[in-house]
């Protein structure tokens, strides 16, 4: 199908974009890379009256690292993240996650800001932002607002952004020394929407995990930090302990059922992912039991 008719404005600055959003409110939609918005418009799932195209705002593109902080402009494309040596060194979780996003032609257009503002529960980057304790930087008529990623995602396609606000950047702490990360998702075909996925980072010291943040996606209406995983922190992980934590994880998650998978299949896959994750982070292949626990 084709998108329904709309008006189009090419924003000339961040302030200009915000003026347009203030004037048109919920009748307007921000167009960044368009790789989620355009399909939704072509399928007539959304029909905005006005498209505010921010694609020409170069100041929103780029990656800067300073003082242990990685700042990524909203218009930075998935392809840019994938090629960036700064991201590979300072936020390797993101590099691994981006490689799983769709296909090269999509990654050449899709942007980090667009993906986060769209807040699809099956998408990779929102989960990574929660894992990495990122801060979402939004700009609106009242100025700049900084929102912790843990508070940013509020539901399916819903975020803490108001219709007058523009997501301009994200900031995340650079990966600490002796940190390890893990990213894995299950999809029927590489690049498809994930049935379930896990983005995790931890500090590994003396074969133990600290600051362990495993965040599941496609298990609910927003990325979900597995609270049960606290049971693995600062402990010598044995198959028995991992099995107990997996059971608790299973009780904690309440994944949806859809055409791709049943709720119990997602629960099972969550256990498989957790075991793979802990085995990979600790370098203990013996813990990867394939979910038989």
């Amino acid at each position, binding site marked *: 199908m084709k998108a329904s008719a709309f008006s189009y404005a090419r924003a000339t600055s961040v302030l200009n974009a915000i003026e347009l959003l203030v004037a048109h409110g919920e009748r307007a939609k921000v167009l960044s890379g368009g*790789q989620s918005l355009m399909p939704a418009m*072509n399928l007539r799932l959304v029909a905005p009256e006005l498209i505010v195209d921010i694609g020409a705002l170069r100041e929103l593109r780029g990656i800067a690292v300073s003082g242990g902080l990685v700042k990524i402009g909203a218009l930075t494309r998935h392809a840019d993240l994938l090629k960036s040596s700064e991201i590979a060194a300072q936020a390797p979780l993101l590099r691994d996650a981006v490689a799983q996003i769709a*296909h*090269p032609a*999509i990654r050449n257009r899709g942007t980090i800001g667009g993906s986060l503002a769209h807040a699809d529960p099956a998408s990779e980057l929102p989960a990574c932002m929660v894992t990495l304790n990122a801060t979402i930087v939004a700009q609106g008529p009242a100025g700049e607002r900084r929102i912790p990623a843990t508070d940013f995602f509020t539901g399916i396609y819903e975020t803490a952004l108001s219709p007058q606000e523009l997501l301009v950047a994200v900031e995340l702490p650079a990966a600490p020394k002796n940190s390890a990360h893990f990213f894995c998702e299950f999809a029927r075909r590489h*690049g498809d929407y994930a049935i379930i996925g896990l983005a995790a980072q931890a500090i590994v010291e003396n074969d133990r995990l600290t600051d362990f943040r495993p965040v599941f996606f496609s298990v609910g209406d927003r990325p979900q930090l597995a609270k049960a995983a606290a049971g693995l922190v600062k402990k010598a992980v044995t198959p028995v302990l991992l099995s107990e934590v997996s059971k608790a994880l299973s009780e904690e998650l309440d994944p949806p059922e859809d055409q791709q998978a049943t709720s119990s299949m997602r629960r099972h896959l969550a256990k498989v992912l957790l075991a793979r994750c802990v085995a990979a982070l600790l370098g203990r292949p013996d813990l990867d039991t394939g979910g038989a626990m």
Partner: protein
Amino acid sequence: MTAPLPISLHVNGERVDAQVLPRVNLADFLREQLKLTGTHVGCEHGVCGACTVRVDGEIVRSCLMLAVQTQGASVETIEGLSDSGEIADLQAAFRDRNALQCGFCTPGMLIAAQDLLKQEAEPDRERIREHLAGNYCRCTGYQAIIDAVEVTAQARRGQKP
């Protein structure tokens, strides 16, 4: 403001000035206004890859880009890549290996394959599969397509297949 807007861009090296409605995507603009029908329209939501074109040297889905977004850009379609001879060897390999049947996916497949071959001299079959994973073919079963891309890569490195 839903009225047509003026855009200026380059398409296959030629300057184009046109008026387009904001809702018109790049694929429909190329096909219907410029009559460049080599760009195919399949799913219209970014899944099938039949509408793959190059914008400023990078492959994109032309169904997921508005024509008005190409203001000032350089767009290359299968007609451009074909006429310039850039992919003549790849096209010949597709023909030799029977890497197409109905031909619907072929323009997108060729552009995506050329994108890989430009970036990597020695892609193995796994890499070729990965790079073409966003392009659907319903006829060939893909094996012949992978073969064609692989032999083209070998030939460009100066190896005999």
